[in-house]
């Protein structure tokens, strides 16, 4: 008999528009399909049954299913940034101009070199990689893994950025029905009748599921339901929307396809729905199971339901002559539809001893031969089906006859789609009569109130005949896990369970023999169900085979865990809008644009961008930093300090509260004055620092570090709301209300006085650590005389909207003074020259203020402050704690930040014992030599001693312990 490849039928195809031809490409060939085709149906219509090769053995493969469960027909789709691997041909709608290519084959789908693996398959059993590549040990990392990695994986990852748009949206509904088949639509109608909002999600572009295909009058019944639903208030019907996962509290994630593979629409390609559902009804239907007979993976062997989908929906025949093999009545529908379409049905091979139901009778009435008690011993053919060898099901595979055919429709029964129900804890129960796992209504996923949040209906609930009056009575399904029942090893070794990962019956049996009794272990050992289809077809068959091998009932084996997503989500859909400029919110100060225009080199600080330095011309960052420092030390500079946290604390108990928050005494601070303060956590560790100003009798303003603003505000509110709820204190985080500018350098006062303000800036009126309020250059301002650089310095806070105005006025007025904007690095270096600590440099979450010689900032008078008790712990008062010192490099080289000082001793692990580390290290432009600080064991008591810092190169750097204040020890420069 001549083989007939798949073809378009002259009639039929409910979803296609024969007048609308669409061109597309497959592996470079120009082909034509019809509007309404899927890629799979369009390829079949072009005679293309083979659509890919399997992962391990590179076996030729055609589509086995017609939906989301398809393991074989995975294609690379699109070009450039729109290329996507592993797209299921069965669920991808054909779009004009589509460019597709087959995967996992080289040089081509037809002549694939990797197929040699198939001839070697007896040498590649389950666990082959684990067993073979374990010795010699180092080879795994350096030889085996790189080679295996290169040959692993199905599709290739795209290399260009995805140019499409994606978005997400939040949805709310009292009831969400997942699945727009007859059971889902009926459940939606029932739910909507009770009032409230009901959303129905259907993954495909069409309503009705299998009903229009499987039942006469099915489409009318669906249309009637849709008419009812559309007239009901509160009902939303959403197609092309796949529910991918159900999470705690009825949080349902779904993916809506808006403009898949059609960038011309200019709208987001996909939308990720994040839905809060009061209750979820899973009407997700069931998936047909393959049968395990030898060579059940030859292209042309497909699920019976898939075959009738292709015929009925797309008018595509898989061949001219068909054999149906089944263990149930449902598959007889395929024979009827195929016969109606004018195809030859050569025989029905039914594993059951008898088939006497309505459907088998209807098939017999057409004159189609029904072979009961029979099985397929083997499919003949390699790239396409040539014939099937028939044997008795209750036997060892002795061939009784051979039937020539082009295609085989198989049905091993149905498995309810229980994924969503299981995702967040719903349990399954084994239905022995139907041989399937279905949701256990007594153990649903639970909500916060202990009630079930999900309920399964229809086929998803194991009610396989859920179309009511449309149903015809069906005979019982007979479980068939291996065909024929006592097939010898040679046949079982060609029975595919997992098509994509090439896991066969013998692999699972081998795993069982080798002690893999747990289904989860067997899964990982054999890779059963680990492919992109996540075992939608293979799981039940595989665990049934495992149960057989372990000689235990199927429920004792159980299932593997169902995890979201139901089908793969593209990462872009999860990221949605968070890409490019919207990837992350950038926080910008009021002067951000000015910095940008001046070519600032940015430093990320939290979500802020702060100027690190302002390089000019050919200057590099290091040169810019040095120039900025010298400009400040010799003249005047400005720093954008707007990012510093500014928290107001007010109330009758504010003083008491401030004394608890800070290690210093803050309640005694005079109005108009500032004090540098330290904040510790309950464990005594230094967590933040900054200058506190007392604004009035009952009001303090706390400056925090840039990164600390939100954290410290939350810390304060935490204590006020949870511990000291009866204290009368209010806080407000006013960080963004003010722009703050540090004006530093010997010319700072001269500059500010040029701006004509109402504030007396003289040293008498505004001494160091004082503040005053008034206006400056016509802008309401608060001026703090504080200094982080060691120079005469003012920090000026003005309303944020006027920050840029003040900044520009300063620069206009200071041009002849050489006014220079300086960045964070100049600030860092200048504070290090002065021996000032920096949170995050000198501290790392394990440092207490005493380690840093900050005892002067710790009140001895106060009964308590947060961290006080912790600082009395033995380890905290241990005299050997590393303490802050200055480090003077002996050879003039800058010590690497973080370098460790080592002693001559060696610990139990053979490592050098350390005695200190570098916490800050810079080349000081002011002093023209390196300056560094570090934490050193007994440091302050060891002034003048030399430490050794071994370098990774083997060299040793040496540094002398010195006072950490390198510049202007007397502090005379503070006064200009």
């Amino acid at each position: 008999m001549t083989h007939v490849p798949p073809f378009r039928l002259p009639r039929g195809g409910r979803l296609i528009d024969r007048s609308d031809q669409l061109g597309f490409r497959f592996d470079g060939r120009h082909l034509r399909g019809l509007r309404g085709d899927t890629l799979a149906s369009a390829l079949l219509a072009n005679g293309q049954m083979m659509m890919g090769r399997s992962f391990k053995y590179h076996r030729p493969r055609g589509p086995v299913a017609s939906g989301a469960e398809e393991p074989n027909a995975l294609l690379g789709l699109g070009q450039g940034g729109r290329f996507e691997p592993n797209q299921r041909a069965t669920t991808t709608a054909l779009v004009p101009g589509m460019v597709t290519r087959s995967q996992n084959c080289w040089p081509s789908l037809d002549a694939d070199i990797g197929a040699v693996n198939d001839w070697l398959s007896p040498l590649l059993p389950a666990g082959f990689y684990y067993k073979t590549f374990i010795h010699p040990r180092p080879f795994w990392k350096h030889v085996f893994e790189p080679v295996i990695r290169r040959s692993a994986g199905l599709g290739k990852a795209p290399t260009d950025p995805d140019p499409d748009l994606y978005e997400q949206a939040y949805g709310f509904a009292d009831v969400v029905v997942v699945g727009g088949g007859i059971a889902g639509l009926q459940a939606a109608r029932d739910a909507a009748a009770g009032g409230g909002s009901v959303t129905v999600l259907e993954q495909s572009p069409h309503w009705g599921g299998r009903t229009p295909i499987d039942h006469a009058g099915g489409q009318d019944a669906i249309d009637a339901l849709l008419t009812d639903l559309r007239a009901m208030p509160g009902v939303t019907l959403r197609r092309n929307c796949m529910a991918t996962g159900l999470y705690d509290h009825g949080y349902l994630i779904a993916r809506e396809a808006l403009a898949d593979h059609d960038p011309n629409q200019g709208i987001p390609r996909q939308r990720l729905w994040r839905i809060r559902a009061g209750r979820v009804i899973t009407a997700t239907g069931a998936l047909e199971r393959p049968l395990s007979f030898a060579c059940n993976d030859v292209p042309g062997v497909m699920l019976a339901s898939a075959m009738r989908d292709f015929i009925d929906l797309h008018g595509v025949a898989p061949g001219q002559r068909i054999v149906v093999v089944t263990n149930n009545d449902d598959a007889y529908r395929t024979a009827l539809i195929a016969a109606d379409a004018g195809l030859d049905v050569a025989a029905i091979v039914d594993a059951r001893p008898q088939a006497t139901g309505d459907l088998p009778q209807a098939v017999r009435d057409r004159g189609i031969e029904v072979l009961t008690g029979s099985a397929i011993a083997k499919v003949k053919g390699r790239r396409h089906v040539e014939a099937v060898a028939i044997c008795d099901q209750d036997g060892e595979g002795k061939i009784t006859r051979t039937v020539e055919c082009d295609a085989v429709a198989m049905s091993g029964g149905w498995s309810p789609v229980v994924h969503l129900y299981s995702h967040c804890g719903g349990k399954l129960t084994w239905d022995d009569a139907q041989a399937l796992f279905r949701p256990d209504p007594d153990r649903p996923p639970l909500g916060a109130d202990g009630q079930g949040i999900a309920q399964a209906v229809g086929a998803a609930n194991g009610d396989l005949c859920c179309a009511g009056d449309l149903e015809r009575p069906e005979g019982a399904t007979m479980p068939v896990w291996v065909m024929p029942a006592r097939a010898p090893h040679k046949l079982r070794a060609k029975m595919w369970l997992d098509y994509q990962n090439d896991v066969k019956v013998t692999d699972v049996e081998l795993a069982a023999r080798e002690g893999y009794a747990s289904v989860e272990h067997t899964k990982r050992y054999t890779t059963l169900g680990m492919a992109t289809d996540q075992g939608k077809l293979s799981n039940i068959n595989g665990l049934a085979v495992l149960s057989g091998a372990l000689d235990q009932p199927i429920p004792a084996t159980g299932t593997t865990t169902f995890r979201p997503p139901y089908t793969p989500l593209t990462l872009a859909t999860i990221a949605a809008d968070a890409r490019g400029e919207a990837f992350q919110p950038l926080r910008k100060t009021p002067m951000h644009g000015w910095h940008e225009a001046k070519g600032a080199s940015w430093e990320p600080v939290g979500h802020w961008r702060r100027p690190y330095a302002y390089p000019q011309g050919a200057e590099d960052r290091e040169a810019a930093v040095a120039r900025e420092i010298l400009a400040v030390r010799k003249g005047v500079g400005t720093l954008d300090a707007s990012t510093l946290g500014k928290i107001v604390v007010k109330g009758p108990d504010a003083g008491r509260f401030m004394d608890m928050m800070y290690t210093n005494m803050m309640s005694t601070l005079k109005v108009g004055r500032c004090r540098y303060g330290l904040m510790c956590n309950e464990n005594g560790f230094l967590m933040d620092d900054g200058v506190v100003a007392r604004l009035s009798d009952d009001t303090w303003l706390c400056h925090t570090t840039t990164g600390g603003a939100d954290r410290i505000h939350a810390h304060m509110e935490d204590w006020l709301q949870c511990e000291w709820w009866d204290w009368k204190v209010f806080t407000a985080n006013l960080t963004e209300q003010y722009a703050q500018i540090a004006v530093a350098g010997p010319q700072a006062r001269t500059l500010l006085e040029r701006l004509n303000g109402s504030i007396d800036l003289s040293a008498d009126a505004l001494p160091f650590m004082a503040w005053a309020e008034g206006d400056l250059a016509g802008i309401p301002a608060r001026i703090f005389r504080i200094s982080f650089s060691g120079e005469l310095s003012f920090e000026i806070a003005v309303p944020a909207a006027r920050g840029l105005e003040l900044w520009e006025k300063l620069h206009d007025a200071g041009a002849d003074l050489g006014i220079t904007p300086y960045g964070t690095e100049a600030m860092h270096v200048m504070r290090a020259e002065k021996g000032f600590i920096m949170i995050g440099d000198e501290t790392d979450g394990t440092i207490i203020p005493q380690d840093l010689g900050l005892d002067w900032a710790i009140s001895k008078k106060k009964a308590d402050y947060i961290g006080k008790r912790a600082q009395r712990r033995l380890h905290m008062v241990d005299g050997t704690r590393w303490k802050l010192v200055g480090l003077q490099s002996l050879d003039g080289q800058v010590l690497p930040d973080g370098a460790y000082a080592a002693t001559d001793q060696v610990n139990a692990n053979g490592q050098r014992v350390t005695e200190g580390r570098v916490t800050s290290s810079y080349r000081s432009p002011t002093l023209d030599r390196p300056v560094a600080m570090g934490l050193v064991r007994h440091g302050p008591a060891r002034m003048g001693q030399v430490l050794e810092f071994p370098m990774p190169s083997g060299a040793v750097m040496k540094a002398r312990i010195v006072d950490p204040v390198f510049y202007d020890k007397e502090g005379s420069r503070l006064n200009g």
Partner: protein
Amino acid sequence: MAEHLARISPVTDLGMIALRGDLAAIADAAGMAAPDRTGIATDGPRSLAWMSPDEALLILPAPQTPEAVEALTLALDGQHALVADVSDARAVFDVIGPGAADVIAKLAPVDAAAMPQGHLRRTRMAQVATAIWRIEGGFRVIGFRSTGDYLGLILRNAAIAGSGLAPR
């Protein structure tokens, strides 16, 4: 090309005063009705919004702000209260148009379409904190000044033509 779902316009003439203390006393001092929990009460050009059990936000025309801060401070003198001008700490956008609720629903975990008039929702939009309430023809969104560019960008992205949430 179809219309955008909504027009996104920055609002720059709003003053805002954060008020902490007893809400009845605050409302009294502001000369406004006290807002219900999660509510926003509007009287002429001024609105008073409930922010927490002890915090309200007075929203008013920007030029009136300094005077109002002074008056409120005076009125609440002697009571445990905090008055702070936060006008400059904010970025404000109006989202106006037939698809305004869709724009909100894409960014905030809020049932925007069901949000009643007179309700202020403190929430987030994508990655930043915001507060949202209904105004004539759409919604008003306030966020923080430093992330104003981001907020404007994500609002415009969410409003692109043809991307309405109605099932297609």
